[in-house]
């Protein structure tokens, strides 16, 4: 059952705890995301921000707390997990494109096999997405023949092909050469402006300033502070936030 009510958040996390053996990676994280919101999650490495978004599509499991995505509770039930994964798209730092398939095959694989679309419908939609991210001419190449920026844009198109309600980005530009970061951020900005619900773990503060509705600062497995970009950049409340911002904004 999905929540069609406008007021219900599309992602609801209540008191999430996660342990890796004895090490606690998430310490009681609670968060709500509304439809259409663009959230930027930032913080020092090891703070649990990647772990957190990976629990939302069950790439990591959580030991305590509840997660609801689009009204579906995330439990051990495989059907719930698969339903949630169909509605969430994820873009990884290492792109993770399938090297044995062409760009077009990468994009159409999931719609054909999961949404059961016929091949021509999937390919038409795939071409539209490739044009949207700016690289329609690369459709029949293999990922290894593309630059990093192009590969990441293909990865974004691949996730969008499933028409998810939520797009999650796990440090999408951290593995890119500086001259290619802009082309990927441009795609993400266009996506944000088109109304997609976005959860992005990133250090790109320019992106946050441009389109984020809310920024969340993570440190040592918990949310330290959240607010609008204006609040976070100009009036950070917590010392840890101020310290981190001074470190990343100084260069």
């Amino acid at each position: 059952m999905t929540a069609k009510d406008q007021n219900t958040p599309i992602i609801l996390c209540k008191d999430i705890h996660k342990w890796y053996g004895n090490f606690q990676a998430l310490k009681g994280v609670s968060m709500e995301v509304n439809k259409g919101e663009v959230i930027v999650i930032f913080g020092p490495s090891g703070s649990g921000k990647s772990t957190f978004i990976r629990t939302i599509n069950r790439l990591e499991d959580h030991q305590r707390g509840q997660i609801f995505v689009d009204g579906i509770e995330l439990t051990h039930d495989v059907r719930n997990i698969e339903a949630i994964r169909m509605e969430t798209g994820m873009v990884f730092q290492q792109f993770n494109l399938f090297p044995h398939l062409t760009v077009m095959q990468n994009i159409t694989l999931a719609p054909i096999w999961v949404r059961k679309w016929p091949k021509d419908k999937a390919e038409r939609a795939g071409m539209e997405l490739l044009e949207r991210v700016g690289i329609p001419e690369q459709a029949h190449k293999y990922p290894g023949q593309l630059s990093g920026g192009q590969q990441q844009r293909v990865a974004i198109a691949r996730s969008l092909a499933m028409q998810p309600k939520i797009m999650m980005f796990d440090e999408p530009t951290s593995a890119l050469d500086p001259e290619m970061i802009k082309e990927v951020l441009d795609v993400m900005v266009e996506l944000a402006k088109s109304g997609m619900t976005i959860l992005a773990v990133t250090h790109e503060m320019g992106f946050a300033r441009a389109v984020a509705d809310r920024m969340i600062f993570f440190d040592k497995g918990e949310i330290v502070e959240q607010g609008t970009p204006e609040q976070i950049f100009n009036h950070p409340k917590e010392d840890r936030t101020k310290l981190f911002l001074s470190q990343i904004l100084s260069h």
Partner: protein
Amino acid sequence: MASQTNVLAPPSPPGLLDWMRRNLFSNWFSSILTIVSLTIIYFSLVQAGTWILVTADWRPVKEYPLLYLVGQYPRDQLWRTGLSLWLFTLLIGMSWGVWEKFVKAFAIFLGILLAVLALFPLASETLTTEVRLAVLANPLLIYLGYMLVRKTRIRGQHVALLWMIVSALVVLVILPGFTGNDVLPRVETTVWGGMIVTLILAAGGIVLSFPIGILLALGRRSDLPVVKVVSILFIETIRGVPLITILFMFSIILALFLPVESRIDRLLRALMAMTVFSAAYMAENVRGGLQAVPSGQIEAARSLGLTNFQVTALIVLPQALRAVIPSIVGQFISLFKDTTLVVIVGINDLLGIGKSILSIDPEFVRLQGEVYVFIAAVFWVFSYFMSYASQQIEKALGVGER
């Protein structure tokens, strides 16, 4: 603003003399090595050539072609082996049409070989005019198969399916026949021998052990404890014993345990042994490939909503298998040569036939060299083409490049 810098063409590749000077005669040591090597090669070739063409007595090979090819298969029923060969050469031609790069070299080689055989200028009592024509039909069938695929919309899946159907038809119907049947009278597998036995054991072993090996490898990585334990037990037990032991187990000990009525065909028992043996090694090869697939691939596939089965079949296995093609083909080639061990359980494969031919005529005792060189050459040809096909497959899949 385009700059006017002169674009230089790359230097032309070195001519032959340049190449020789640089690679063979670059310094004193290299030059001496070259001359010594060339001398050795020359004399070896002359020796080998003389032996092959002049000194050797090829009677044990020339006079018994049918024994090498079909063993003791009843001579009046040979039309069935001829028919089987026609079906297979047709399929090889079709395979050439569908999977050009991998099959072409072998198809052409086979066609030329059979044509030469058919038109062999020396008179021989086996090579009657009818037989020559029947053999000549094969290169034509190869070509026919190729054109058939080119002109119609037959695709890889169809040809693969045809291979399975035709193989089953040949091995289960055409060659053995049925008791009491007039058209296809029963021919027990005990009289089959030579090339057909070697090919059945090798091809059957390879084709059957491949999927079983993959399942074992996946089973070993499974989260279900029973599946995992059974897989590991199977793999480690089989890998721990020599192939001969497994052949004995299936041939002799299995027969002791089963009641007389349900005696499984001896050739089938040997095939089961080869399959089981190869599957265990295949499993470990595949497992190496599975481990080489980055976990990010599985995460990306899962986050797209693919089920576990789809992730394994569409993303993990293709990459895993690509990574281990050299070791898988190496396993196939080993299996092909290991089929010679079945002589120990009384099955007359190509090598077994060779040995028994040596005892036909007292003069043949000193001609072991000829027989074994011939058999080795046959094995070498097949092994070479398997290697060649695997290199073509690797190139086509872009292994090592992407």
